[in-house]
């Protein structure tokens, strides 16, 4: 079964096509990496899939429902961690969790249980009452991820979740993603760190709004005849520009 | 110095970039002055009244005709009982009932006192229209500086003070808090700019905006409302700019105190709007207020500006006549700026 399927998904801003005729599918339970240079259209595509923006043409289904439906039932099954860090900075970690958990309809017992589990999973004891704005960036990202997972969604969208974070914290973060995927959650992640691509089950490469390649990291390297994902990226980007 | 110029340029870009804000900054003062210049007046026109004609004589009918003809009143109908009067008052249909009793040449007014300002105007005008009592000696009154007692001459200078104050304070009051909220203050703090430079850099561009506003407000007052201009234009512009500067500095001060734009707005609007309208002498003469309030009104910049600009426009006063007001405004400006610079956050928390 596929978690996400897109059919000729397109987004134009005036005369400019930001996302151009995307057709692909993401299998349930896989880590799907969305790669591309800045401005390639990753965020725009993700915004359409999460229902934040309407497609200009084409369609997509997420968790079995068309994104044009705006169904609440779908919203409850997805989580979203936006590129722009967007927790409430003036609220504490706990207050943010309670708010978002409550908004996704968790009952009090479940909420308390999930928050307790969050506290141990992310080693946040002693920091639950800290205002989010006072946390270091790496921790903030953990909190944002934990918040996006609190209602145990089937599919989580992460838009450049590790932007501006050091390599060790990034590695730890990807460890968490892999663990989460092992539990059966579908992860749709955008990044432009090529080393992160290695963690993904499959990669979609975006160049100028178009999907120019889609395969596992190993097979991509093989077909392009190069050793690293960096080289894959450079080769594809140059090809797309030509 | 280069960094400072760059900073001023950036502020200008902020102002000019957002077309909507720009339109508001320049458009609002014009729209408001035009709107209020026409709408705010104290002369009675078409006030709703009713008549209760018990006498039913030719005389009483003549008097009613006089009321209807004067242009001050709109006679909404007739009543014939006290309960009807009450009913009409409570529904707010009329504000006054003019009673012509059966006995003698008397007229009695029952006026709704729940709006005292209106009540006084009503009785004053009604007595003026109906009574012919004049002193045994001829009193000839000359109204100096505002011969027709025109509301516009009274209110337009006041409106200038209120509008300039609010729009100027508003412009700067959230400028620093916005940078705090969006996180760009960090960049500023890391830069070699001194706090004083940042403050000046934020005030100066808006001073130019204010200059344009002072100009348009002046033209409208003169061309549209025919407010007399007995003093020197240069002096008027100088005093107005000084006053705008005071307001900008006050906005800056609010900006250094508030943490969020919302707080800044509540302070600069929620805290300034009513005091500026009420304690500046714009509507209510300060000399009539209780001593305590007269004392408090001294800290309202608009009070001083209003004295100065009415004196220039209507009385043709020169710099010497308004020296005190100018000094006070300059002193306030210096104070606000100094405190802002002192309070400027050198580092984030």
């Amino acid at each position, binding site marked *: 079964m596929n978690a996400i399927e897109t059919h000729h998904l397109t987004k134009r801003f005036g005369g400019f096509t930001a996302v151009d005729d995307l057709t692909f599918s993401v299998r349930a339970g896989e880590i799907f990496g969305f790669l591309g240079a800045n401005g390639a259209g990753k965020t725009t595509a993700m915004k359409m899939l999460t229902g934040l923006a309407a497609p200009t043409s084409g369609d997509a289904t997420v968790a079995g429902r068309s994104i044009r439906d705006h169904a609440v039932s779908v919203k409850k099954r997805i989580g979203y961690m936006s590129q722009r860090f967007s927790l409430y900075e003036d609220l504490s970690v706990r207050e943010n969790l309670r708010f978002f958990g409550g908004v996704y309809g968790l009952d009090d017992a479940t909420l308390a249980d999930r928050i307790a589990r969050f506290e141990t999973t992310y080693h946040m004891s002693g920091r639950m009452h800290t205002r989010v704005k006072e946390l270091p960036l790496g921790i903030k990202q953990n909190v944002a991820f934990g918040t996006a997972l609190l209602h145990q969604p089937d599919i989580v969208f992460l838009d450049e979740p590790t932007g501006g974070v050091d390599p060790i914290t990034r590695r730890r973060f990807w460890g968490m993603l892999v663990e989460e995927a092992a539990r059966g959650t579908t992860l749709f992640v955008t990044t432009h760190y090529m080393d992160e691509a290695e963690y993904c089950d499959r990669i979609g490469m975006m160049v100028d709004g178009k999907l120019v390649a889609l395969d596992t990291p190993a097979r991509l390297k093989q077909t392009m005849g190069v050793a690293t994902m960096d080289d894959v990226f450079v080769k594809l980007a140059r090809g797309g520009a030509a | 110095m280069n960094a400072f110029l760059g900073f001023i340029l950036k502020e200008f870009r902020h102002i000019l970039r957002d077309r909507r804000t720009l339109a508001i900054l320049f458009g609002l003062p014009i729209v408001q002055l035009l709107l209020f210049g026409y709408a*705010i007046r104290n002369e009675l026109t078409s006030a709703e009244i009713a008549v209760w004609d018990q006498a039913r004589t030719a005389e009483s009918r003549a008097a009613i005709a006089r009321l209807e003809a004067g242009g001050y009143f709109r006679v909404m109908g007739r009543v014939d009982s006290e309960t009807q009067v009450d009913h009409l008052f409570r529904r707010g249909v009329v504000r006054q009932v003019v009673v012509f009793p059966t006995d003698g040449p008397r007229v009695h007014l029952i006026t709704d006192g*729940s709006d005292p300002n209106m009540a006084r105007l009503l009785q004053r005008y009604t007595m003026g229209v109906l009574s012919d009592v004049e002193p045994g000696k001829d009193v000839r009154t000359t109204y100096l500086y505002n011969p027709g007692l025109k509301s516009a001459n009274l209110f337009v200078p006041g409106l200038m003070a209120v509008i300039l104050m609010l729009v100027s304070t508003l412009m700067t009051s959230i400028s620093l808090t916005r940078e705090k909220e969006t996180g760009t203050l960090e960049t500023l703090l890391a830069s070699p700019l001194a706090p004083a430079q940042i403050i000046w850099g934020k005030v100066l561009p808006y001073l130019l905006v204010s200059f344009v506003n002072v100009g348009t407000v002046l033209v409208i007052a003169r061309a549209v409302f025919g407010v007399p201009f007995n003093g020197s234009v240069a002096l008027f512009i100088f005093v107005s700019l000084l006053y705008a500067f005071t307001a900008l500095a006050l906005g800056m001060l609010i900006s250094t105190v508030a943490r969020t734009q919302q707080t800044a707005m509540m302070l600069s609007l929620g805290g300034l709007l009513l005091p500026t309208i009420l304690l500046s002498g714009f509507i*209510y003469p300060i000399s009539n207020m209780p001593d305590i309030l007269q004392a408090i009104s001294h800290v309202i910049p608009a009070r001083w500006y209003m004295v100065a600009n009415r004196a220039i426009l209507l009385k043709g006063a020169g710099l010497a006549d308004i020296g005190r007001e100018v000094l006070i405004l300059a002193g306030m400006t210096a104070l606000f700026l100094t405190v802002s610079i002192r309070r400027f956050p050198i580092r984030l928390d």
Partner: protein
Amino acid sequence: MRILRFILVKEFTQIFRDKAMLPILFVLPVVQLLVLSHAAVFEVNGLRIAVWDQDRTEESRRLEQAFRANTYFEVVEGVQNEAAANRYLREGRVNAVVMIPRGSGVVHVRIDAVDGYTAGIADAYIRQVVASVWPPAIGPDTRIVSGRFRFNPELDDKRNMVPAILVLLITMLGAFLSAMNIVREREIGTMDQLDVTPITRAHFILGKLIPFWLIGLGMFGIGLTVAWAVFGIVSAGPLPVLFGTAALYLLSVLGLGLWVSSVSDTQHQAMLVAWFLLVVFILMSGLFTPVSSMPEWARHIAQLNPVKWYIDLVRRVMLAGAGWADVLPSVGVLAVFAVAWNSLAWWSMRR
């Protein structure tokens, strides 16, 4: 309903998180109510006049004495020539100069009319004093007009100003808070996060409305208590009418604020627009100058002003003792505003 609960907790926490907000919400208005209610004094006292007596007769001296004896006037000395008269007037040392020329039947009065209101009053008072020295000849046609004031016989300005200023304060509170709120979420980027949650538009709007609505009503209650405890003003009409209409009125003001917020791109814009609307509403509310004195087109604009409707309503309830039946038409108008502005906010809220 559960979702709404979580939204409300979050909104309240955020409102009160900023420590500066609490005094701004509750102390600032109370202070303003206490201070500003005294500002409206149309009673003119201590008019400074100079009497320039050229006549120097028994009668002219009696006039000067009459001015000195009258508590409305304060007689300033030293005006005995044209130059002094002009200087005293221009420098604002006197409000008026009364000049009695030699041997004529005229009294010349020159009044500083920069403040037109005081000038009009001064003229009337001066005429009264002159009439006390030279009484009018009362003929058969002379009409004697007497008057009394209903609901506020002493014309106590505070009984009008306290409720009216309270209305202005809750209006500003509600409109500014709501106008900044939604656009703030948009500006700091949390709006997107909310958009992917199952929060519906209705939840969202209610979550924004209810806290401000309660704060506004709370402030209204505090204000009425202050009016009673400090100014001794109690409502002549029933309290349920006051609170019921306040609830409706706040709903309309908040709807307007939310609408402004939802069509603005930045808090800065929202603030400027909200400010513009409020200044128009307040100055054209009929509190300071009568609505009926405005030109006709302005009177039409004033019909769209919720503040005008509500100040008038509160005045009638608190002073004239109006009940539900009396205020029904105004309630209808407020209801129309509430529905219209909240609907506009609803439609313009981009998802």
